[in-house]
């Protein structure tokens, strides 16, 4: 079995104006949860739409479960779940009717899971879909995407409009989905703590390309904030390779990508000063890495 559920190679795509995606490249393995980050307008939604087979890249190649999503037949399409950013649920009256309609479309529909989740999320079957709150509509769309137990689940800002309790439930559910090690989830979000909680890999989209595509653990261990102090003479004008340097009198604070646990001490020895090594949260990392871009 192919270990990569998603393979995106050098795709470009625009909407007439300047290209939104400019050589996007990444892979998502089976059993993985990939957190897809980027500022507003960075192209996350466009990337997810190409993976869902809703739009076609102008160049490059997209493979989902080994095939091109643009040419997927009904059977292949059923193995990929997708919840768009602006999910509009069909106005089919009550929740029960919509659920029944969807269940008929999918031979693999898990009725027990679906009923259990609706119950857990407190979405009454008798409610009219149009009367549900935005958060509940979002959860309903998520349940409908999850019930067929898709091999790949694509979620565009799934946590928007969810309260913290519902969000935690939602995260537990995507963990539950991938627990057999065969399924994959790709989700875009602005809520970085959600990514920190469940994702094993993270991509940061900036100016149509990924500026980060690596394991979240590696990212946190390699990009650090170092404070250099106790210089003998005046502090150096710059720190080679630093993503950002702040300075005040006789100290420097630099964000650096390090190549090992001994790197801070080595740099400090070279600069003739002392060093304090501080980890960065994903939020701080995100800001440092995307500060000057879209």
């Amino acid at each position: 079995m192919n270990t990569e559920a998603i393979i995106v190679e050098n795709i470009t795509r625009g909407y007439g104006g300047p290209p939104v995606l400019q050589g996007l490249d990444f892979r998502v393995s089976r059993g993985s949860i990939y957190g897809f980050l980027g500022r507003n307008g960075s192209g996350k939604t466009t990337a997810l739409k190409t993976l869902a087979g809703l739009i076609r890249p102008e160049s490059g190649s997209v493979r989902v479960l080994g095939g091109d999503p643009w040419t997927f037949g009904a059977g292949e399409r059923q193995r990929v779940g997708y919840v768009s950013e602006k999910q509009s649920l069909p106005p089919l009256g009550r929740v029960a009717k919509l659920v029944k309609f969807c269940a008929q479309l999918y031979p693999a529909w898990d009725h027990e899971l679906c009923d259990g989740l609706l119950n857990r999320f407190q979405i009454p079957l008798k409610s009219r879909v149009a009367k549900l709150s935005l958060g509940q509509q979002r959860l309903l769309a998520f349940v409908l995407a999850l019930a067929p137990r898709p091999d790949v689940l694509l979620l565009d800002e799934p946590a928007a409009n969810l309260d913290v309790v519902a969000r935690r439930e939602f995260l537990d559910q995507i963990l539950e989905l991938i627990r057999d090690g065969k399924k994959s989830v790709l989700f875009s979000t602005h809520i970085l703590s959600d990514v920190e909680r469940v994702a094993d890999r993270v991509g940061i989209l900036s100016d149509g390309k990924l500026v980060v595509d690596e394991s979240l653990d590696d990212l946190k261990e390699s990009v650090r904030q170092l404070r250099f102090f106790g210089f003998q003479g005046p502090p150096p004008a710059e720190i080679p390779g630093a993503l950002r340097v702040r300075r005040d009198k006789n100290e420097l604070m630099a964000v650096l990508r390090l190549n090992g646990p001994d790197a801070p001490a080595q740099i400090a020895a070279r600069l003739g000063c002392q060093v304090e090594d501080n980890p960065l949260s994903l939020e701080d990392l995100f800001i440092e890495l995307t500060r000057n871009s879209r």
Partner: protein
Amino acid sequence: MLIALHPSSGVPVYRQVLQQVRERILGGQLKRGEQLPSVRELSAMAGINPLTAAKVYQFLEAEGLVETRRGQGTFVAGDAKKLSAASRRAEIEPALRQLVAEAIHLGIERGDLQRLVAATFESIKSGENL
């Protein structure tokens, strides 16, 4: 096993879980030969990615603290105590570095720091501060 997680700290989740399981083994709360939860169970209990849970066990195994028995699961290593001197040092290393860095920063001399450490060690051990 109950795990306290702080996903938004800069410390990777696998390190947080690793440290908490390691403490339980070194501190004797998990006894030698005791079975640990499976990767799936740990992932469900701690609310973490299964790949992260698997990584925790890989590290514990490399440190000699646990052993995987084919088809049975993961267990606290029989000789965890014996093998753990290096692990104990690895465990305390970050706190030690932090302490020494602060001492240097505050201009505390090496001899003074050693005396302070010795005095604190005695005071905690004799239960004064507990």
